[in-house]
């Protein structure tokens, strides 16, 4: 447990020692702030019409889900750049030996690296959540729905990180392959529920596997165990696979 914290805190600190984390946070915040402001403008133009409607979507419905949805898509492209560092880049620079020859279990190494990155991702979620919160100054927000969206984005990013970590283990000494592999794989999972569009009939299995469906279900404010369970299983499986792979690699060569 202590070792996980030691490794995680070093991973987290190292992210901020290079310009990577800072520039990432800055650029993300800029792009998302722009998207946020367009949503606010949309709301302002729609407001007069909405006022006449019975049960019309409120401020939260118009601004929060699109903002978090877009953040999810952007981070789908960004997270692989972070996860590729975890194992593949350490292999490339031959620094993984340090961890492998220390009296630390493989599970500690994997979880330490995972939580270190998760720290940065949760910080990003926090920064995204702060933007709609500023609307409290002059408006009314459905805080429950906002919390559900934050939870949805956190779980989504945690899943991205777990998947990226595993592909980083698989990619040997090639961080760029880890990154492209992760982007491709995540995009595929994201788009799986588009099968219906092609065939005119929906495949329930593929739709169930799709990340997007569970993410959107949580976004509506309905924190159902099925969706949360899906993400937890997703994360746990990829962490387990990473541990298995690293251990197998150590046994074999």
């Amino acid at each position: 447990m202590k070792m996980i914290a030691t490794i995680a805190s070093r991973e987290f600190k190292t992210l901020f020692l290079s310009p990577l984390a800072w520039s990432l946070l800055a650029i993300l915040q800029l792009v998302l702030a722009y998207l946020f402001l367009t949503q606010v403008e949309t709301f302002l133009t729609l407001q007069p019409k909405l006022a006449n409607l019975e049960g019309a979507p409120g401020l939260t419905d118009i601004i929060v889900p699109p903002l978090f949805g877009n953040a999810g898509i952007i981070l789908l492209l960004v997270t692989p750049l972070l996860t590729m560092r975890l194992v593949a880049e350490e292999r490339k620079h031959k620094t993984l030996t340090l961890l492998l020859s220390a009296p630390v279990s493989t599970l500690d190494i994997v979880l330490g690296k995972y939580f270190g990155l998760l720290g940065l991702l949760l910080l990003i979620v926090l920064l995204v959540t702060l933007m709609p919160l500023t609307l409290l100054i002059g408006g009314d927000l459905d805080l429950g729905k906002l919390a559900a969206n934050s939870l949805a984005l956190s779980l989504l990013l945690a899943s991205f990180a777990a998947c990226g970590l595993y592909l980083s283990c698989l990619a040997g000494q090639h961080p760029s392959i880890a990154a492209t592999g992760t982007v491709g794989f995540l995009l595929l999972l994201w788009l799986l529920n588009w099968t219906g569009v092609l065939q005119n009939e929906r495949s329930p299995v593929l739709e169930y596997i799709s990340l997007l469906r569970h993410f959107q279900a949580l976004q509506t404010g309905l924190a159902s165990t099925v969706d949360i369970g899906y993400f937890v299983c997703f994360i746990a499986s990829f962490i387990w696979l990473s541990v298995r792979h690293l251990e197998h690699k150590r046994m074999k060569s």
Partner: protein
Amino acid sequence: MGLLIAAEHLYQHYGRYCAVQDVSFTLEKGQVLGFLGANGAGKTSIMQMLSGNLAATSGQIRINGFDIQKQAKLAKACLGYLPDTPPLYRELTVDEFLAYCGRLHGLNQPALSKAVSLAKDRCGLTDVGKRLIANLSKGYQQRIGIAQAIVHNPAVIILDEPTVGLDPLQIRSIRALIRELGNDHGVILSTHILSEVQESCSHVQIIHQGQLVMSESIAGLNARMDTSVLLVTTQRQADVACLKAIPGVVDIDCLDAQRLRISHSLSANPGPAIAETIIAAGWGLQEITPIKQSIEDIFIRVTN
């Protein structure tokens, strides 16, 4: 039993290629064991197996009585390892990095800062503690690698080519450090430099094409290599038979009319006698150079 390492019948196959073949040895406390071998002889593979980074295809390694594969955590707690490329996080300062290594081995404050400053002191890093590893020269980075291996005061220290990239002065201080570490630890180091083994080790094992061809104490090695070579250049052709008669001369090769390669026994040291004979006979001594023994010479001697 003071056995720190017991390795039994190690094999390592990379596909069809067999890098290590039936290697067995032991290391006791107070020994500095040098693995001597040419490049590609299998030294690094053995070091990786000992440190638990590479599983042996077959065979068993016990560190301080713990099996490196089955009781990995316990075994690794007794180990300090410097791989052939020092595993350094370049974006950290020397202090931060060594503290992290200490923590990975379960050290806590206040013992941690003590251990870090001791390791820095031993490796000559006291002045660069606050500097980023990325900005330091290769020699410093190598020394940080050594510091990283000894920071938690392990019973067994494994150093894979510890003096690569160091200047002669640093090499001397690192060799002295290795001898000092050998007093109360067990040290294994690999190298392809003969003099390194002779200066800093108590025992030597020569590895050739994955096999252990010799396992000796340093005194034993010196005794086995009791021959050396002199290269002699004369102005006029010398009489080989006359030189061969000098006591201690084992063999003479004529490289050309003026140059001779004289193999002689080290203990007899016939150098001065050879010089006197050549001058007295008026062959015009131009040059007499002792030839340093290369690993190949020893291999040839040992394998014959």
